[in-house]
């Protein structure tokens, strides 16, 4: 083990870690917005909205994220006739991907709320959407915190796939250092440990969050 090399590489790797966190946070946030919308659409009364949500979820969950990244970065520009920068491409692919999984999380969360809650709301004259917003969703949000935490952790690791389009997050940074130094052992170990550390921190944070909502 060349510890000198590791010390020299650390600043670069930390920079890459920041980028990984950034893309994960943005992707999961946008993914949550898409997922919340699609999750509600999947169980709403409008057939056309249900179909749209089903097609979206099936297509995204039925294809690999890696292929989705290629499509957004290489194929999409051919359609829209303009280049897409690496960061937006990475964010778009990851967000759309995350959205499909989050949609299923929200759908399950909403459906886990007793049907009597919706009936009580409707019987008071609230509309379907009002009941959803004020009664069902606030209860569902609490229940989806653990699976959303899992989704965040999964995206943290899956974001390494955007290294294939040359986007310099943690994995790509590692690759680049190795291509100069040939220090596979040292750098991949470092990269793995950094991912592990991030995941453990996020897992602890989610557990805390879960506890906080539980007591109320």
């Amino acid at each position, binding site marked *: 083990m060349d510890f000198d090399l590791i010390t020299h590489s650390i600043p670069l790797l930390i920079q890459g870690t920041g980028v990984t966190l950034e893309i994960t946070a943005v992707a999961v946030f946008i993914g949550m917005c898409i997922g919340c919308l699609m999750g509600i659409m999947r169980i709403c009364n409008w057939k056309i909205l249900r179909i749209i949500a089903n097609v979206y979820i099936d297509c995204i969950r039925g294809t690999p994220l890696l292929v989705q990244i290629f499509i957004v970065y290489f194929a999409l520009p051919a359609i829209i006739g303009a280049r897409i920068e690496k960061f937006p491409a990475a964010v778009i692919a990851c967000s759309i991907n995350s959205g499909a999984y989050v949609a299923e999380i929200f759908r399950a969360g909403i459906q886990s709320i007793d049907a*009597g809650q919706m009936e*009580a709301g409707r*019987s*008071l*004259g*609230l509309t379907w959407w009002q009941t959803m917003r004020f*009664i069902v969703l606030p209860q569902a949000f609490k229940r989806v915190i653990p699976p959303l935490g899992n989704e965040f952790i999964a995206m943290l690791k899956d974001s390494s796939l955007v290294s294939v389009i040359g986007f310099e997050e943690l994995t790509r940074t590692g690759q680049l250092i190795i291509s100069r130094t040939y220090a596979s052992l040292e750098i991949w170990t470092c990269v793995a440990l950094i991912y592990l550390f991030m995941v453990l921190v996020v897992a602890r944070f989610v557990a805390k969050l879960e506890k906080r909502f539980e007591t109320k």
Partner: protein
Amino acid sequence: MKNEMIKIENLHKSFGQLEVLKGVNLTVSEGEVVVIIGPSGSGKSTLLRCINFLEEPTGGSITINGEKITNSQHPKINEIRREVGMVFQKFNLFPHMTVLQNLMLAPMKVRGINEEEAKETALKYLSKVGLAEKANVYPENLSGGQQQRVAIARALCMKPMALLFDEPTSALDPEMINEVLDVMKNLANEGMTMVVVTHEMGFAKEVGDRVLFVDGGNIQEEGNPNEIFDHPKTERMRAFLSKIL
């Protein structure tokens, strides 16, 4: 002749192949207390749930205060529902809100009244059901009987023309049944129009203006409580009474 408040005509309801309601006709007048009794699976709860379209009828119509409705897609469905309160077997209070918030939500969002007024109304009905001191408590900290009284107060806060009760005491421990029935008796005495599905025969006798015996998807017998309990005309009714009394 009193105002016809709820008029059910030829109501049918099927769940797949199973026909639960087979052409029910029923008129409820203003201020009347109609009690529906009958064996499990007879369709009495389904009938009640069809009145505010929590259950979608397969056929027939329901006229509420002059508005004739055949399905829940009716544009005025929310306006109708706000006029017809419902009390559920399992209370269905909103667990993430305090008692007061449970009571204030619908009047503010549906009736559009301001927070102050909603709070005033909520506290008024809360003391009516004897729970004014529980305003800031969460439902999980209340007993079953208290929860059901809160649920009644929640329905009252919308100032409905009529109240539907779907086996309101069936999920309660025996010692809590009376506190709920007492609240319902008071409402009946004040002239509230009520349709009550229940297994409480004492309540049916004492409070009901009219008792309906539902079995096999239709009303088998109806009349004033004394008539129906003391002189049952049909064999089914006699068999039912012999089992429960």
